[in-house]
């Protein structure tokens, strides 16, 4: 089973990297960009067919390691 975990900064948390990328896109002349927030994507393979079990395990993985829930949100998708 394949899964994707996406970790993003919570709203309101300053993201200087996102801001720098935003500025770079503007300087490249790419129009219409209002704002950029940088995050992380984890593609994870699991040796199980139990979808609910996999979701629970990945949620646990996010809480324990993949995300710092002080400043980050996470989303688990089973692909």
């Amino acid at each position, binding site marked *: 089973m394949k899964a994707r975990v996406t970790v993003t900064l919570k709203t309101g948390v300053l993201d*200087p990297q996102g801001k720098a990328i935003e500025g770079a896109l503007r300087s490249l002349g790419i129009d219409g960009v209002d704002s950029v927030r940088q995050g992380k994507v984890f593609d994870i393979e699991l040796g199980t067919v139990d979808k609910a079990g996999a979701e629970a395990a990945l949620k646990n993985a996010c809480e324990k390691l993949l995300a710092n829930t002080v*400043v980050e949100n996470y989303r688990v998708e089973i692909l």
Partner: protein
Amino acid sequence: MKAAVLLFPGINRENDVARALAQSGVKPTIVWHAEHDLPQGTDLVVVPGGFSYGDYLRCGAIAGRANIMDAVRAHAARGGLVLGICNGFQILCESGLLPGVLMRNRDLKFICKEQYLRVERHDTAYTNAYSHHQIIKVCIAHGEGNYVADSATIQTLEGEGRVAFRYCDAAGHFGGKGNPNGSMNDIAGIYSEKLNVLGMMPHPENLIDSLIGGIDGRGMFESLGAFGARAA
């Protein structure tokens, strides 16, 4: 006083901090991260600076979950002293021993320079050799030192007198150029609720010898030595 200096892959300041401790009569032992127990009779755990696990995932995230950290949490819960410097501060935040998080510096640059701090209180195991609101010159060397926490946490830290050090300029003024990395409330270091755990971004262990620029960092290690002598 006996100190356990933790060593994770990528940590590079363990010998500097061990030297600073020894200079003030604290006996350091280097402890590998895969150990499950601290050496018998450990009074102080030091998590030194460096780049544990290459700063992968988030600074301090992987080290914060190493085997030895369970023993460190138990030691802290018993009231034992824990000092985290630079990457060590990031590791203490990631391990849940201190609140908040160290984000990328405001201006995105790795900053390596001398920096003034104000000692916010001088009645703890770490600062008793300093004077009231003493301004000290130490070094900073970090890319992620921008202290961030939610407003309730900041209020608690301020209300309980748990801000250990604040960034300032040579005259002791806060804000503006005195704050190198954008940290909320100019926070350079914080204590746990019982004041036994201290995390700080600056490196006091760099400034312990007049040969290399100053001795303002010595006060912290002298404080620990004096605290240990009193407790013995």
